[in-house]
């Protein structure tokens, strides 16, 4: 099925950074598949943040 909301999100995020795109799509995906409350969803996202967001390498 085509998802008008998803198409809309994709269009809206076209100019955004890859990190933000990934983060929003992952959050929407988790909200849909896991049916978690917001607090639990935030915890889940926090756990996965390192994998979703590519943080630039810092000097030691």
């Amino acid at each position, binding site marked *: 099925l085509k998802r*008008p909301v998803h198409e809309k999100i994709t269009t*809206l995020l076209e100019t955004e950074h890859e990190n933000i795109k990934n983060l*929003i799509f992952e959050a929407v995906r988790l909200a849909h598949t896991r049916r978690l409350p917001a607090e639990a969803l*935030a915890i889940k996202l926090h756990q996965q943040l390192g994998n979703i967001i590519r943080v630039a390498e810092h000097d030691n």
Partner: protein
Amino acid sequence: MIISKIELLNFRQFYGKQEISFAGKDDNDCQLTTVIYGKDGTGKAGLCRALFFCLYGEKCLDTDLESNDCDNRATNNRGICLVNTFALKEDALGDRKGVEAYVRVSFIHRGLNYEMFRALSGIQENDGKIVEQMEDLKLTMTDGRGKVRTWGLPEKEKIKHEINAMLDSHIKGYFFFDKKQIEKLMDPARKPEVRALIKKILRVEEIYLAEEAFRILEKKLLDELSNIPSDDCDKMVDERSTVQKLVADLTEQKDSIEKKLVPIRMELQHLDAKRDEFKEAFDLVGELKAKEDCRQGLIEKKREIMQDFQQFMPTAVQLLTRDLLAEIYQDIDDKMEKGQATPEIKKELIGKILSEMTCICGREVTLDSKEYTRLLQWAEGPGEALSYDVVDAFTYIGNTIHFLNGKLEDLFRLLQQISDIDTEYSLVTNRLGQIKLELAKFPATEVLNSLGDERNHLIEQKAEYEDRNNRLSDDLAMAEFKLLELESGQKKKAKERFRYKEVQEMHSVVARTCEVMKTVVAECSGAVITALEQEINNNFQNLAFPDSRKNLGKIVVTADYSIQVHDSQGRPFSVEALNEFREIIAMSVAIAFAQVASGDHILTIPVFVDFLPGLLTKEHQGNILKYLASIAPQWILFANNSFKLDAGERLFRTGRWGKFYLLEAVSEEVTRIKQAPVEAYQTVLCEHCEELDHDNEQRL
């Protein structure tokens, strides 16, 4: 998706194996409507249940959940029994092996032929309780070239994912237009519920949820940032640099000492080699020194003994009287034995002692001594009285002799010691002479001594350097330990700094995401509302007659997802006043949900419609039938007695009616599926109308 066939075995009312082939399976087939006609309770909902059970494993429908008939969609518990109860009773009366039930659905989706199979078994226990359990699951996919792929129970999750990708389980309910659901849409008392439902079905709920989650996440990251110590580690870097210098300095000093120790060790080795060469001489020199020390010791010892001897000399003089006293003692003894002891003898002796003032033992007799007083008493006393004291004198003389014997032994011991020392002295002197003779073969003792001195000096020097080296090693170990500590601390700090920067960056991404989400929520909800509103109004235009809708302006979906009907002046219309429009608006909304959910005006999923004429006029009913046929790829109409001949005629005239099935109740527990030719609809519907009239007459 086009459903081709559904096959049932002992599922709900459908005893034994029965099947329905749906119209519209051929892409070119314009006859895409299947009518399933049956009285209420003959199993129309059972067919929907069979479809959802097969595709999603769900045993309950939304209506069951609302009426609390089951605890959970995936678990069959209170009141919902899927296995045919007639078959269960039959089994219970027989050998009670259990009853097998299954649903097999064949469908086409995006050029692939699917066959989904899900089986369960049930048994009726002695107490009448029915126990059911899932048995098997299989999805077979065949492509256009005949290539077959099959997934079974181990691929349960894959199957779930595949089915959900075709029709999401969350929105499947919106392709089933049942009476309750449609009525709910326009019920003012259920507005909040409908709003939540709209958000959920259009997946806007997930966006709201994600937005809130991001706000929580941003706060979490801020908290984490405040908990990471971000103090400057430059001080630690300076300290590390100082300790590093210290380590280098100590290492240098240690190396310098090691360098100094090298020649010393070599020289010592050289001297030790020489020492080995003159080992005998060194041993002799050592012995010479030892013997000389020994001789000196003997001289000292002899001198001490001679001093003792000199002190013994007065006592030695007394020893001269020992023989005389022995004679006197013997004489007295003899005479005492013979009884000839005379007092005169004693008087003479006492007189002699008193005149010489010296005892027979040589000891001086002093005037103030007790002995002198006693001697005077004896000399002046009568001779008889004195005779009694001869025994005492005899005893005294004996004791004196015993005393002198002891002294004599002391004298002999002293003399023996002197003799022993003289002997040893003589031996040592002889050995010294021999050593000197033997040493004459070797270099001069001075040379050897100098060699020894040099070696001793080197040993001392080596010990000193080694001591310094050890101290430096300790300092170096301490400094290195400190350096390690500092390095570890610095690494920890660096990690913390890295984590701080990482979290800072994550926070900035999440903060930006929160901002973006606001736009996403606003835009998406706006887009969804616009799309929904557009589809509702479009549907309404198609379903309602122009004359009927002239007073109605527009159906509006508000920002909070409420549905309002406005008049031509843009004023909200009372829903209660809408009469027959209420149901046609509800139908427009229901269809619009399915359209927005599937993302297109033309639906991609078959629509199941529970025919409800309610307040609808015949014209409106006809419009619905015609309109659904134009927007759905396939639709299945569940009709009951209210599906009258005229409705049938209107549907038939659309030219889309492809299949016609009758559900005939054999008993309360058994329904038989019977296919009828579409063309025979008039006969069938008339028969049923007559039946209904007969029933009503009987009831009256």
